[in-house]
């Protein structure tokens, strides 16, 4: 069952930006803590249900809170239920990686005969919707997290060279969900790829790192800082990887007001300036 804000249900469902229930809310506070140097995580969910009739179903055992955790990369899917408004679970190292979606629900435990809620929209007056076992009574927006192992994943791996509508001889950065595109014209893409392939195992690669990846990373750090209040990038995979890299290198986190991102980018790339062959000719 995918999350869709405009999904049509055959019965009232308490959910964001919808008036099936009048002046009621179902909000879930989710926290995900990653254990250091592993992919093990702990998930903590607090459910806030603001409707007396639905709360009555929970108290009578006819409904329960449910947290659905999905990770398509590791083929993982498991549900956790509780009649208490709090669910906490730990996932061991290796179970989750990549994109993880956590979706909170309130669900019917059995067929509900004749259930009505006082706060239903007047459009439901006189109607007797059917609630089967498993019916979703309330839902909140799912949260997305990225869990990546840090081993042998250089910061440059979050960039991908791609062809874009860019004048020949220039390049530009475009943050996407999973990576950051380094866009160049078609011929320049081929030139850069060929250079990377030819010089990939030589010191000459540092010229490419200094000339392209370093300024791109500086831009990306500044852009992520600038937009931290808007939250534009926080659900993106590269964002959490970049934040983790800053933490590992004892740099200020993304969103910090007074970070020196020119210095931080050089730290993340192991001070590429001094590695350039032109500076080391004897």
């Amino acid at each position, binding site marked *: *069952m995918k999350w869709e804000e405009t999904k049509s249900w055959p019965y009232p469902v308490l959910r964001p930006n919808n008036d099936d229930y009048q002046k009621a809310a179902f909000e879930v506070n989710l926290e995900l803590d990653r254990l250091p140097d592993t992919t093990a995580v702990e998930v903590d969910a607090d459910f806030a249900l603001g409707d007396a009739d639905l709360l009555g179903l929970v108290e009578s055992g006819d409904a329960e809170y449910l947290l659905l955790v999905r990770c398509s990369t*590791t083929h993982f*899917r498991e549900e956790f239920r509780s009649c208490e408004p709090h669910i906490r679970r730990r996932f061991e190292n290796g179970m989750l990686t990549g994109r993880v979606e956590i979706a909170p629900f309130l669900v019917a435990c059995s067929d509900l005969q004749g259930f009505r809620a006082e706060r239903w929209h007047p459009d439901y007056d006189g109607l007797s919707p059917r609630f089967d*076992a498993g019916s979703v009574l309330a839902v909140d927006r799912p949260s997305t997290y990225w869990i990546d192992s840090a081993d042998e994943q250089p910061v440059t791996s979050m960039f991908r060279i791609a062809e874009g509508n860019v004048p020949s001889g220039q390049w530009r950065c475009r943050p996407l969900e999973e990576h950051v595109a380094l866009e160049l014209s078609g011929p320049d893409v081929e030139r850069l790829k060929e250079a990377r*392939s030819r010089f990939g195992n030589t010191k000459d690669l540092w010229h490419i790192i200094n000339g392209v990846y370093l300024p791109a990373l500086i831009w990306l750090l500044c852009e992520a800082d600038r937009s931290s209040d808007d939250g534009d990038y926080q659900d993106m995979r590269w964002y959490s990887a970049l934040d983790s890299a800053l933490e590992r290198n004892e740099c200020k986190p993304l969103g910090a007001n007074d970070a020196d991102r020119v210095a931080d980018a050089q730290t993340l790339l192991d001070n590429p300036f001094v590695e350039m062959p032109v500076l080391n000719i004897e």
Partner: protein
Amino acid sequence: MAKVRYFTALAVDELRGDIAGRLDWYYDPSAGDPRRWEKAGEAIREADIDVVEIRDLLTISAQPHHDDPGNAVAVYNALNGLTPHQASDERLWTYVAHTQGAEYVAARWLSERPSDAVKAAQKVRNHFFARGNRALIRDNGVSRLWWLGYIAHQTDPEEPNRFLEILLHRQDVRSALLERPAVSTNPRVLRRIYDVMVEQWQGERELFQREAFRQWMVNLNRRGGVVLLDALSDDQLRKLIRDEADHALSAVL
């Protein structure tokens, strides 16, 4: 016992970037040095995970898709020390496909070489590399076997071969159950669907008729859009899946 080895990310990118230059090798790995990639030095890392070499465990017969169940169990058993996280790593499967699995992958998936070099390279990209989830589960010649074995052991730990025999005997069954994440990544749902399929497999097999099976999947998909299947108890789930199977058979037969 050997340790798991894998390419660096840079090595994978370089290999992917130069498929065209090595097309002849990909379509006939036996023609060159069979261990060429294993000598690549800095391009290879080693993990502290024990592994049995799979080179001699893989079978290719005249009808290679019939070998998939046995090969899946063999690869999974040889690499059952991997966590799902480790088994989702393209670097690992690219290395295995280029080394121990090269001749198998070429024989299984590249027996016909397109005359168009671009298409020929695309086939190599699909089966020797593993960028993305779908590629891991469906395309890479070796990772698909591991993940088949993994799902089989999850669903029918007593008889994983039976699970694979039933699910792989037809492409539409495989696609519907293994390539659709809503089902294949839902172990409880997959297990209940499989229970019904086992009964049918041992009986009249009416549900395996193409139209009946398709209708069953449509019915389940429709029910899953209204009811959160994960929220059902095992008994409720079992009943729902059986009821929809009966409805599908009634509608079609």
